[in-house]
Every structure is written in C-alpha cells, then in structure tokens.
C-alpha cells in the first residue's frame, strides 16, 4: 500500500497541483469520437434502466430497445407511493450512516494511536490491520453468519453494521495513518508548548487537518454499505429488515412479469448512490486512487 498511499495526496483529490496538461493537436476529432463512444457505452445500460421505467410492459415486450412512445410516470409514482420502498430506503440509510460514523470514529482513533504514539507492538498491530485487507468478506461470510446468529443479531441492522465496520477498518486505517503521520512533529511540539495535551492536539489539530482523508474513507464506507449485498443476504431474512439491494432483488423476482415497474424500482434505488457520487465525485475518485476495493 505504500505506493498507493503516496499517490493519495493530502488534499484528497489525488491530483498534482498546477500540473500543465498535454496539448492536443491532430487527433482531437478522433479522441472526441472515442470519448463520446465510451460515454455512450458506459451510460447506455443506465439509460436503459431509467428510460425503461417510463415505458409500458407491452412496449418493452414489442420493442425492448426503443424509447417510450408516451412517457409513463405511473411506474415511478407507484414505487414512490409504496411503503416497502421507503422502508428499504430507511433501512439502507440507517445501515450506511451508522457504518460510516462508526468506521470514521473507530478508524480515526486507532490511526491516531498508531501514528502519533510510539510503543511496543505498534508495528504488530498495524500489520494485523493491513493483513485484514487480505480477508474479504466472501471468505468469512459463513462463520460470520453463525457468529451474528449466536449474538442474536439476525434480522437486525446491527448484525450488518458491526461486521461492515470491522471489514472497513483495515482500509480506513491504511488510508488514515499516512495522513496523520504527515502532520509535522513541529505542530505537535508547538501545541505542547502552548499547553495542549496529546488529546487536545487530537481535537484541535488532527481532526481539522485530516478532514480530506476522513471524508474519503467516510464516502467509501457509505457507498460500500449502500451497495452491500452478500452480508445482508445472509443476515437479513425478514422482509421488514431488508436493505435496498435485497429489496430490489426481491421486488424483481416478485414482479418479474412487470418489467417496467422493476426498472422503475431499480432506477429509484440507484438514484441516491448516483446523487451522492456526483456531489462527492472528486473525493471518491481521489480517494480510490489511494485506497481500493477489488
């Protein structure tokens, strides 16, 4: 991760400041064409889902790749009027927000301890966390399910949140430790001279200075939780506890003949992640150049 961490600049954007871009001369039309083609390919499936929600089922059956003759809003309105959809949105929001907050708080505390204190076992603990990058949830899912069940957390969001936090911690710590280490020792000395203890230093200096890193790990944790499928699939068996990914799947098999409504449901469920992404795009793109999920 050393190389990756080095690429993650403290401003969280992963961009070298003020670097001049290459000029382009002869190839502009070709480049523009390829770029447009690329955008088309990337967006076509998304457009298919969103536009499909505005069509009727008979239209989709007759001409699966066409545009709506008349734009139907009924599919979207029906989904928006359903309690099931909003309950699942609520569950997803609770899971994602709780995961994000816990990951940031626990990760920041541990990273502070690991980066600004010197003690025996520091390297071992750090190595243990980085080794956690090698344990994807796929491998641990069966025993994790048994563990969560024996803790009585089946069908509860806590049973999803806590493991998600645990599995997000290695990446969080790997991103945050270099951030905190990059804060110059002189700042800490100056703070100490001014009568600021180490925890005071943490609150007054470290928190503001590490904000870009915190935002990056927070966004990564939020999106991972919002999209998370395997863990909820094991833990949440009761409809009432479903998060959106499970809800989307249940809805699509329940209404498999009503394709248009499925498409409306699917596009509404991806909307929050897309909005969230477009707001924080720079942070995410920057953060992912430093931190990564395979």
């Amino acid at each position, binding site marked *: 991760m050393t190389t990756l961490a080095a690429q993650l600049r403290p401003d969280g954007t992963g961009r070298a400041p003020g670097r001049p871009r290459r000029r382009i001369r002869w190839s502009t039309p070709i480049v523009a064409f390829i770029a447009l083609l690329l955008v088309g390919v990337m967006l076509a499936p998304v457009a298919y889902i969103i536009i499909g929600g505005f069509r009727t089922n008979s239209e989709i059956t007759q001409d*699966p790749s*066409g545009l709506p003759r008349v734009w139907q809003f009924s599919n979207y309105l029906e989904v928006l009027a359903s309690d099931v959809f909003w309950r699942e949105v609520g569950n997803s929001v609770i899971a994602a927000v709780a995961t994000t907050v816990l990951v940031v708080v626990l990760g920041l505390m541990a990273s502070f301890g690991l980066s600004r204190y010197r003690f025996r076992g520091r*390297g071992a603990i750090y190595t243990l966390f980085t080794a956690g990058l090698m344990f994807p949830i796929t491998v641990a899912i069966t025993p*994790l399910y048994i563990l969560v069940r024996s803790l009585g957390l089946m069908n509860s969001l806590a049973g999803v949140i806590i493991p998600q936090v645990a599995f997000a911690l290695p990446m969080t710590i790997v991103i945050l430790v270099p951030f905190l280490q990059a804060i110059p020792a002189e700042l800490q000395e100056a703070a100490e001279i001014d009568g600021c203890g180490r925890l005071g230093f943490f609150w007054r200096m470290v928190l503001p200075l590490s904000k870009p890193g915190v935002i990056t790990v927070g966004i990564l944790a939020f999106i991972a939780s919002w999209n998370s499928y395997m863990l909820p699939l094991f833990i949440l068996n009761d409809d009432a506890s479903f998060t959106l990914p499970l809800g989307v799947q249940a809805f699509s098999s329940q209404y498999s003949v009503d394709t248009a409504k499925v498409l409306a449901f699917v596009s509404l469920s991806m909307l929050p992640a897309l909005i969230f992404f477009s707001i924080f795009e720079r942070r995410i793109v920057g953060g992912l150049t430093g931190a990564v999920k395979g």
Partner: protein
Amino acid sequence: MAGRDPLPATRRRRGIGWPVRLELVILIAPALIVFLAFVIFPVAMAAYYGFFSWSGYGAATDFVGLRNYVTIFTDPAFHDALWHNAVIAVLSLAIQGPVALGLALLLGRKMRGQSLIRVLIFVPYVIAEVVVGIGWSLMLQSDGAVNGLLERIGLGALATDWLANPSVAIWSLMAILTWKYVGFAVILFLAGLQGIPEELSEAAAIDGASFWQIQRHIVFPLLGPTIRIWGFLSIIGSLQLFDLVYIIWGQYVASTAGTSTMATYMVVSGRNAGSYGYGNAVAVVIFVISLVVALLYQRFVLRRDTEGALTGGKRR
C-alpha cells in the same frame, strides 16, 4: 511512509507512563476488538468448522477430518468453478488492462468535457451490483434490449440467449465485469499518469521521440507500479467474485451456464444446502488459494514496488 518519524524526538527516550497507556487503550482497543471479533475470529472459526460435518445448529461434534477437503477437490462442480475463476482473472487482466490503459492515455490529454467524461466512466463502478445484475440480465435475456438492438441494425442473426448459452455466458459476464470495473482501472491509471513528470515526455519529444516511443519507453515503465497494483486488486477481486454471478445466474443456472465461481459454489453447496461445515471448508480453500496467489504475485510481480505492505510482510 517508513522514512521519517513524525514524533518529537524527546518521546523516544522516555518510557511510556500509565496515563499514556490508558490513552492508547482507549484509542486503539475499540477498533482492535471489533476487528478481531468480526474479521479474524470468523476466519479462524472457518478453519475449525471446516473439519466437521455440521448443519449449523448446536455444537459441531461430527468430526470428519479432511473429508470435506477431499470432497471439494474431487467434486467436478468445484473444478469447474475454480476454472471459471481462473478464466475470469486472466480475461479481466487481458481485457480491462489494455482498454483502461488506452482510455487513460486518451483522457490524460487536455480536452473539453474531460472531467465530465471521467465522472461518467466511473458511474458503473458506483452502482450497486444488484442494480447492475438486474439491469443487465433484463437487457441480455433472449427477448431483451441487446437482441432487439441487434435486429434493429440488421444483425439479428447474432441474437442469442446471452445468459443461458454456455458458450457465450462467460463472455457476457466478462462484458459486464469490464463495463462495471474498467472505470476504476482508468481512474487508477490516470492518477498514476499524473505522477509522471511532464518534463520527461517533453525532453524526449525535443530529442525527436514520437508519441508512441514516448509512451512505450517513458510512460509505460513509469506507470508500472500502478499497473501492477491494479493487477493485484483485479486478480483478488476475480477470485472472490460472487455478487454479480449470484444475482444474474441465481443459485442453480450458474453451473450449467458455465459462470459459477468458487464463492457461488461455497454459498450454494454450503449455506443453501445446509452443510455449514462444508461451506466453511470451501471458504478456507478460497482463502488459501487467494493467499497463495497474492503471495506469489507479491513475490514475483510487486517485489519492486512495495515493501510487503499488502500482506504486512516486511513492514515495520
């Protein structure tokens, strides 16, 4: 980051007192406990339960030794799954790598709308696997939008059942994987390109090097570390692939369509069949295979780039 020590020099000489230890415990213990309890402990338990025939309820008492492992390695369904994982890993590298590299070189240039394009190619990466899976399976089914589009442009003869036809299904999966994850590779490569000093290419251009010579002899070698890290992540991701396959092909058809992976095999033959001991044994096998691949990759490919950071080997 091993280089400089950000701590005040005086810290070192003093031993640490109890108040500081307490601070440390308060800071590190919560994260460490959660991590040990929900990451390390379950993985260890998988290794333990893998030796039992166990339905998941009550204590595991039916010790079967290595029988689960023997079954795994003699089950043709697992061989298929392992083979599919290998094919997916290799094809992901072979397809996404060059495509992403080309796109990164293209997008690294100055042009209008560049930042918008960067965002747009990243959109599929942010969309949930469930959404991707359902959207694509609707488009790729035999009366779906892809076949409709082919007919519309006069290529109706190419239409097929993209998901069920065993000779095509794995390529459909590769197309979806490429679509979903290529943006991620592009972003990584773009970040890597930005780390290459502009002066090098300029100097080479002044010395008369052509565009391709510059790419070949300056840009690609300097991008090496980024490409190798991406390769590592891509391989590990391919070996753990679950969500998309399980969502699109469900529990049963994945094996007949030729897209099953080790992880879908694990869930189908473990949890869904009620054989938790067996499922845990499969998890151990997946983990060991991933670990061996990761260590080999690190030993022979990443050696130059990292100090064993990904597995924590030589760090400290």
